[in-house]
């Protein structure tokens, strides 16, 4: 003890100090590198979310354009103009019924309807028995088309359910406004085609109140408890069980803008994007959930964390090992041996030669020579040359 303090033990303290320094530096570098890598992965996932959103938005825009193109094509037919001008419901049905059935069966056209201004149903090709009802309250797009006499497109909850509509005004050959015609594309085939093309799973959630108020023609089974998710009804889904695992009522509670999150379902990590669906007036009508398998990118991140941790551990082990070997092997152990030998000088014990002393560091050779000189004087050996 010196002055009440324990004498520093270089053998231990130097090694520990260096080991701590190595651990701090290497672990710090690993954490920094890990954070950088995680940031890159986050960017990749953000891009994936953006891509999912862009795919759905583009597909919906395309569907709107297709609906409007079909509607435009129909209202340009002279026969259609003539029959509609004469309010010949049966004639229109006979003219377009077959074509509509084919379009429905093959191309996902779900609804087609003529309206007379301002927004009264004249003929539903998909439901010819129902007509004459006023659509003003829940079909603002039809009202707008008939008022402005300009085509419009968008998502709407109609009597026969939600669909992507293209509505166009109908004029006769003389340019007189007769009313409007709309084509509605079913979400089901659209979602299925996106699943096939992009391996996405999608689900369409529609506000239950809207369905109950306006969609009187839909199958009542759709409004069952099984399909209810909070205030929404899961109207279509490409994988209902998966959707059930990924989208909870709380997730749908507030979706005013795209919401992204990552969640595990069925043992796989999946990215979910919730996109609000608004009608042409900007009123929210539902949410579309898009999900993609993120397990690849997540597994890559987790694997990289594991490997980084391992590399860090091995680096620390190797560096501390080198420090120990250099400090203890080259310096401390020879010093210890020399110290033990010099300690024996005070006793009457016979002094033994130091094995391998010739390979001690050059800086210690002066002590080796001193020891050998003393040992030689005591008759234990020859004087060093």
């Amino acid at each position: 003890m010196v002055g009440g303090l324990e004498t520093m033990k270089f053998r231990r303290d130097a090694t520990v100090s260096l080991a701590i320094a190595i651990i701090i530096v290497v672990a710090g570098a690993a954490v920094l590198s890990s954070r950088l890598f995680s940031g890159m992965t986050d960017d990749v996932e953000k891009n994936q979310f953006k891509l999912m959103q862009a795919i759905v938005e583009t597909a919906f825009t395309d569907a709107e354009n297709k609906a409007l193109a079909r509607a435009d094509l129909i209202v340009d037919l002279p026969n259609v103009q003539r029959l509609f001008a004469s309010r010949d419901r049966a004639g229109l049905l006979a003219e377009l019924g077959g074509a509509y059935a084919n379009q429905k069966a093959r191309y996902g056209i779900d609804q087609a309807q003529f309206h007379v201004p301002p927004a009264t149903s004249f003929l539903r090709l998909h439901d010819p028995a129902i007509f004459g009802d006023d659509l003003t309250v829940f079909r603002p797009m039809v009202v707008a088309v008939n008022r402005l006499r300009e085509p419009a497109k968008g998502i709407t909850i109609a009597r026969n359910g939600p669909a992507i509509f293209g509505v166009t005004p109908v004029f006769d050959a003389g340019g007189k406004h007769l009313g409007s015609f709309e084509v509605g594309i079913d979400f089901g085939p659209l979602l299925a085609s996106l699943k096939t093309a992009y391996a996405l799973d999608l689900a369409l959630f529609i506000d239950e109140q809207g369905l109950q108020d306006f969609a009187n023609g839909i199958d009542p089974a759709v409004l069952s408890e099984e399909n209810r998710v909070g205030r929404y009804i899961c109207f279509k889904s490409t994988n209902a069980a998966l959707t059930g695992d990924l989208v909870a009522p709380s997730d749908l509670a507030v979706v005013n803008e795209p919401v992204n999150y990552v969640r595990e379902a069925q043992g796989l990590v999946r990215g979910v994007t919730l996109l609000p669906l608004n009608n042409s007036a900007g009123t929210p009508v539902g949410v579309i959930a898009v999900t993609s398998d993120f397990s690849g990118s997540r597994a890559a991140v987790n694997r990289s964390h594991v490997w980084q941790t391992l590399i860090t551990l091995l680096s620390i082990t190797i560096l501390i090992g080198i420090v120990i070997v250099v400090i203890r092997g080259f310096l401390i152990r020879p010093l210890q041996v020399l110290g033990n030998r010099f300690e024996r000088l005070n006793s009457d014990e016979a002094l033994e030669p130091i094995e391998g002393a010739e390979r001690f560091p050059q800086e210690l050779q002066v002590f080796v020579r001193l020891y050998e000189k003393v040992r030689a004087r005591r008759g234990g050996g020859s004087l060093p040359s």
Partner: protein
Amino acid sequence: MMARFPSLGALTRLLIVFAAFCAIHDAKAASGDFPRDKGLPVLVNVGVAFIEILGFDENAGTFEATVDLRVGWTDSRLARADVPANTPPETLRDVAAETRMKSIWLPPVVLSNQIGEASASAYGLRIFSDGRVELLRRVTARFTTDVDVGRFPFDHQKLNVAPALRGLTVAQAALRFDQSDIDFSRPARDAQLTGWSVGLVDLQSSTIPGWYNSSEDRVIATLSLERQPGLVVASIFIPLFASLLIPLLAIWLNFMKDGVFQVETHEMVNIIIGGLFTVIALNFTVYSTYVVLSVGDNTVNRLFALNYVTLAMALTVNILFARFNLIARIFQPYVQEQVYYLIMWAVPVAALSIAISLMLTAYV
């Protein structure tokens, strides 16, 4: 000159040719031409429900299951204008269904990954008054499937059943699935497979290359399975970790005093050689049971590699240090002493860290 009667053999051949002709004629009559009145391609809906999973052979890449294949299409030639629209469909089962099937057009949907003949097959047929037809086929058969054991024992596998339209190009007939087919395609509530957790069924469309640059349509129904790793961990990974301890012991048991090893090298080498035979035996046992693990990169192969590398390292350390005193000769005995102390704890730390990392990379 006597009239020459055909021999028995010639008669038999004639009968076979006649029977074959009749069979072909019947088949053509039964299949008829596909319904073109609504334009092409004819749209055929498919859904697949997994009723029972009877077995899954990972090594062969096959599984045996009972599945319900539902095929739906519209043939307006079968529509009956004389009955009300809400009339219940004509519903037929088994023999009655098969008899009726001979008189209508059926889409040539086959299970493209089925191996051999089905061990059981039954039909149900519903023909609606508007011409819609729904054919339900319950089939028990073996199917091929791809097996990926890269994440073994924390892996997921997919059991595929792939209905495909054979003989009709995508321009003539197309397979599709709608909400009803998606809802139909699911595992039975009580479907289970020992050692696996049964997940969901997913449907995906794809095509198969046909003749002359054409394609045939296919839908792949995939049932997800998640391996329950408990039993596998006990039977494979505990021995693998245990065998890893042998070379580590061969390093750790030796020790130095004043720069001199206290245990003879040959004793340590004996332990290492024993460890080598142990790993080889374990390797043989595991690969003979799980043949699929012997190919490709997976956790088991990596752990075996780690075992061999650790054995080689232990042998090298013992030979270089204890037998030849290599470090002592190059530097000095105290350096070798410190290097050996380092190896005594650093090699086990490194080996066990790598082994745990290999397991974690499979798990995450």
